[in-house]
Every structure is written in C-alpha cells, then in structure tokens.
C-alpha cells in the first residue's frame, strides 16, 4: 500500500488514537503513516457487534420467559462464555451451568450472588433485576 492510499475513514478507535500502518513512499521505501480507520474493518467490527447485540437480546428474552437466569444475560452482556465466568467467579463450569437454571438461581446465597455481581461489575440488586444503568 502506498502512503497516499492510507484510508482515513472514521473508526471507533479514532476516539482515542490513530493507528500506525506500514506503507511505501514515492521511492518504494517503507515508512509509517497514521490512519483514522478503514471502512472495511469498521464494517467487520459492526457485524461482530450486531451479532453480540442479538445474542444479548436473545438471552434477555430467555430470562423474561423464565428459561434462564440473569447469569446468562450478563454472560452475554459482558461478552463472556461459561469458561470466563467460571474463571472470574471461581465456580466450576458445571456449577455455572446449574446457576443458569432459573430455579437454582433463585435459591443462591447472597455470597454466591456477590461473586457473580463482582465478575460482571454490577451490584447484586442489578444482577437479580437485570437492570443496569451504564453509559
């Protein structure tokens, strides 16, 4: 890629920094340039996020229909999977799967709920009600 061809589209990263790309100058020598973003990869990230939003919404619906506990919703909201939730809470994966069942979740002690709340960076109240105020 030549220096004058560096894309300068508006990407999410542009909020905090431009990024370095390696390009050639007029004489064919390598140099670096700064890019604000590239539409092609902005779209790739958009597609990934649309998928995430869909999974979060699906999880929310499952909780509302009493098919899953809020742990499933927050797992998706925090882009985690069962393995990551297990690592942050210290529970076994199998245990986390049990806690995703609504009936089991309702009987969880405050101490256990607190572990989940901490992992998801929310309060126990928010965990129970699925209501989070975030900017």
């Amino acid at each position, binding site marked *: 890629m030549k220096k004058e061809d560096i894309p300068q589209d508006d990407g999410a990263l542009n909020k905090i*920094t431009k990024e*370095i790309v390696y390009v050639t100058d007029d004489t064919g020598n*390598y140099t670096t340039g700064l890019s604000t973003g*590239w539409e*092609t990869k902005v779209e790739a990230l958009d597609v*990934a996020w649309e998928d995430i939003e869909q999974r979060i919404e699906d999880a929310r619906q499952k909780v509302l229909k009493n098919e899953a506990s809020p742990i499933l919703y927050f797992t998706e909201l925090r882009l985690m999977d069962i393995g990551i939730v297990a690592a942050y809470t210290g529970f076994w994966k199998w245990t986390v799967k049990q806690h995703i069942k609504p009936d089991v979740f309702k009987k969880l002690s405050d101490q256990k709920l607190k572990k989940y709340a901490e992992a998801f960076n929310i309060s126990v109240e928010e965990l129970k009600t699925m209501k989070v105020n975030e900017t």
Partner: protein
Amino acid sequence: MKHEFKHLQAAHCENGVTTNLLRSVGVDKITEPLSFGIGSGLFFVYVPFLKVNKGPAIAFRTMPGLIFKRTCNALNIPVVRKKFSSKESARKFLDECLQAGRPVGCQVGVYYLAYFPKEYRFHFNAHNIIVYGKNDDRYLISDPVMETVTSLSDYELERVRFAKGALAPRGQIYYPKENTVITDDHIRKAIVSGIKRNVSHMIRIPGSIAGVKGIASTGNKIKKWRDKLGQQEAGLYLAQLVRMQEEIGTGGGGFRYIYAAFLQQAHAYHPNDALLEISKTFTKAGDIWRNAAVQAAGIYKGRIGTQADFNVMGDFLLEISEIEKSAFQALSNIKWHT
C-alpha cells in the same frame, strides 16, 4: 519520581513493547519491523474446531509473547519474566521495579482496560503495555498502539493484570536486564536466524492448517462456507477473518507490510538485493489480503453473496498462498554471509 521514558507508537503492542523496552536499556537500533522479523512474527494458522468469540480461530502472527522472547534471545539479551499467584506480590514487585526506575512490560487483558473504546473491549488477554512510573496513585502507562502515554489507577491496572480466561496474564511482568551492548554483528546474525525460522514456520510446517498451506486450505474452506454455514454465519466468519487481519496492531495486510518493511531494513545489514525484491513480493501479498478484505466486507454487509462471490474470496487466498510460498522459498535460497 523521575520518568525519562520515551514513548514511541508502534503498529503492534508486542513489537512496540519490545522496541521501547530495549531502548530503555540502551539498545536503540531495534525498530518495530526488526523486532517483528527477528522474532519470526509472520504466520498464518486456522485452527479448526476451536472458536474465538464464537467465530473461527485464525491468526496472522505468531503466539503472543514469542516475539519479545525470540528477539531478546537472538540478541543475547537476558530477560526477566515473572508471574504471580497473588495480587499483592504482583503489585509489590511492580512498585519495586518502578522505584528502581525500571520500566517493565505487562501482559494485560483488554476487557477492563479503561482507556480503550467499548467497541474494542473483548476478552483478549494478550495485550502488552509498559508501566514506566507512578504519580500519586496513578500508574503511568505507555501503550504502544496509542499515540500518547496514558495512566491507570491501582485498581484498574490490577484488574487488567489479573484478567481471567484464555491466556490469563496472572500479573505477568517482563523486562530485559540492563547494560547490554548490541553490535551490528549481533543484529546481522539475529536477522538471519529470524528469517530462517520464519521460512520454516511458513513453508516447512507439517499439516495443512498452518503456514502457506493453511492459507490455501482456508481459501478452499471459504468456498464451502456459504452452503455449510449459511449466509449469515458465513458473513460472521469472514468478518472475524478480516478483524484478525486488519485490526489494530497488524500494520495493515495481516502483518505482511511490517514484514516487507523488515526485509528492507534487513538489507541495510545484509546488502543482498534479493531482500528488496522479496520485500516487494510481501507488499503485493499484503495488497491482495486487503483486496480480499474488501470482497469479504461485500459479503458480510450483504452487498454481494452468491456462490461465485465466495469463490472469488477463496481464490484470493489461493493466490496469496502461492505468492507467499514463492517469497519464502526465495528467502530460503539466500546465501548469508555472516
């Protein structure tokens, strides 16, 4: 506390940490492309059955941590690397380093990295930053992918140093020991060993999932994705491929441009014009990777999507595979004078 650390932005975090840490101990000739090439950073692998963020596990570069390790090894620079089981001992060790005026590399997770934009905060645990000082209760941070330095609170830094999940950093700290004198001769030899290892990883590695054979087999798989996965899932897979290829840290074209830059810089140490020609071949490979990304974007945004469009996409990778194979063969044929 006095901070004389000089922040230099890099395309990739690990190259940048390597380059900047080496500068902090007086080794100032190792640029980002040199550390990437000496560390044999260029790679391709598509691991079947393994999923990352619910998409395919594809990488365009070598395993995290290896570039720093190999570059320091090749230059005979002793490295200190420590992991911690407790947060307290991790913080204590870091503070002692900073007290002694020593900047250190830290492996961190990006999910809770406060200064990153939300869109980029995934559970990726192999990001690298330098901590170079402490003012009041803020740690001073040089993140190589950023234009300027930044800072993190005690809690924020601890949280990312002890991120959980795959490749959990466990507070990992690393730095080169000081007072190392590196001559041009060291660099000359390191370049040769870096290239030889990269040749072997890209064209001699057994199996069909990695190296140039991995690129070709991925191209063939892509042609089947439309039928096998359906339009939407196939789109997600292609989006993941493009993100691994072009997202922050690659320097563009799946690290192929950085590698082309490396070969040009290597020419200053080994004046063999074949290096300049092969550099052009990698530029060409990088350009085609980017053309392929544009084709992929057409598919994942639904502008195109017939089987013929998937075939074009797959063929890009088959073409790239041939080009990179010829480039690495040319590299393996070079007679080095060291």
